[in-house]
């Protein structure tokens, strides 16, 4: 258990309009070029968004790693790649350690870990864009359906 402030993305289901901009901004934020058009033209094959937009009739919402307090993925990870960073409280994948055994995919109750494709055959998921002030999905959601908060634990 980590004590202290920890960032969390709130999902406001009732305001998601299903545009999926969060997905493309997520991909772009994690690309080489960081440019929407270049990502689309040259980089798309290797990248998958860490945020998933679900849709059914009138309900749509985006969901990305919840950075669980008692994270199932961390429990199940056999390499120690999936870990909670003690300074940020976020759950990360250490790409160098991950062997792609997909134990985490088996247990994450949100289904938000993806199998990396191509040369990145490691688990891939939301890293809260900690190198940015605001996560890309939050910053670019046109309707504030994703909101960054800090929770105290």
């Amino acid at each position, binding site marked *: *258990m980590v004590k202290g402030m920890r960032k969390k993305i709130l*999902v406001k*289901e009732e305001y998601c309009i299903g545009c999926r901009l969060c997905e493309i901004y997520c991909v772009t934020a994690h690309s080489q070029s960081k440019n929407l058009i270049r990502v689309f033209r040259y980089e798309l094959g290797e990248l998958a968004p860490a945020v*998933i937009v*679900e*849709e*059914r009739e009138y*309900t*749509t*919402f985006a*969901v990305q790693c*919840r950075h*669980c*307090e*008692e994270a*199932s993925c961390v*429990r*199940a990870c*056999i*390499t*120690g790649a999936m870990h909670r960073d003690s300074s940020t409280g976020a759950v990360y994948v250490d790409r*160098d*350690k991950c*062997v*792609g*055994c*997909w*134990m*985490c*995919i*088996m*247990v*994450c*109750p*949100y*289904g938000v*870990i*993806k*199998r990396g494709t191509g040369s990145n055959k490691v688990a891939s998921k939301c890293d809260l864009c900690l190198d940015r002030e605001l996560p890309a999905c939050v910053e670019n959601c046109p309707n504030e359906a994703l909101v960054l908060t800090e929770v105290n634990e």
Partner: protein
Amino acid sequence: MRYLIIGTGPAGIAAAEKIRGLDEENEILMLTSEEIAGYSKPLITYFLGRKVNEDRMFYRPPWYFEERNISVMTSTKVIEVNPAKKLVITESGEAINYDRLLIATGGLPIVPEIEGLNPSEMEGVFTFTQWKDSKDVAKYITDNDVTEAVVLGGGLIGLKTTEALLELGLKVSIVELSDRILSNTFDKKASMIVTSALQKRGCNVYTNDTIVQVKGKKKITKVVLKSGREIKTKLLIIAIGVKPNVGFLKESGVRVNRGVVVNEHMETNITDIFAAGDCAEFYDPRLGKSSTIAIWPVAFSEGEVAGYNMAGERVSYQGGIPMNSVEIAGVATISVGNTSAEVENVEILEYESDKRSVYKKLVIKDGKLVGAVFVGDIDRAGIYTGLILQKVDVSSFKDDLMRDDFGLVYLPKEYRKKLMEGELKVWLE
């Protein structure tokens, strides 16, 4: 005060982590019979297959223990526990006292009785549960120019080892007693898909069969199967399962059935002695049943529960279920819970893609999901695992479960809300 933990596997480490989280002062001492602590067992097959180098073997690197002020003694095998004096005796005769003790000694490989086989004397025959085994096998392969191997047991460890041997370019034959590989967790169809993927990679799979005789003088040269088939081989890996490693507790008074019997707080029958992981047998008071489930996530969770309770915080274990994720011959597979149709009164939902590259199966009992198998497409499998662990009634959205786009949006609003707000504790309470 000293917390003593026997075993540096996931159960032991999880316990140590939780104890340190709650108690920053008192001594934590961990013992392991192995030469190295903090490495990950499941990675030994990756190590053999050269997918993981020495550095990446460490689940928790040595500095990790130092940083948290956790002492570790390697090559220290416990041979006796004395609850009356609150101490344990090691192989070298040393007595180590404890205030609270955790037994997290994992499992031991099961070795069957086979004519002509005395593993300790015959070279080229290995079990495969420790890093040392992996190193030994690797060395044996190079030293003896091994080009083919026989793996006895088509379970998880057997297949993972097969995968590694295939990586090294060996020709592998799997011998499995039951009618299919991974019979514990897979149904026929799932096994078939994996079997044919293995066969495509040049692997022989012999089911309904076993080894009745091993030939060779100092080194193994051949195995004879029950069916009469003879296979020439310089290498035999025995991987027919593990049993709780509890022999050293014989005189201790700690209650052992198959494993060390523990309650939902991971307490044994003796005060201040706890057990967790592959060596433990959890008695679930709500089900009135006990089980030993030798998998990593269960070992880790039990370790956490033990840690909490050893440090004085009352936490209950919710019970685990068998589950596994393996990629074999390029096919990703996940199985969770009870996946065989043999149980009565179950409803089965199945999906199979045209080219049989994807297979999914769900088992529903009394309106609740109790098992799931995914082959080829494992994306979002954890949502189903969550439903199984949370015992959610799926009757109202049963027809949606097999949809291509199945996701959280199909879950009952209440459950989804709780889930999204992070209110659900999946493993412990």
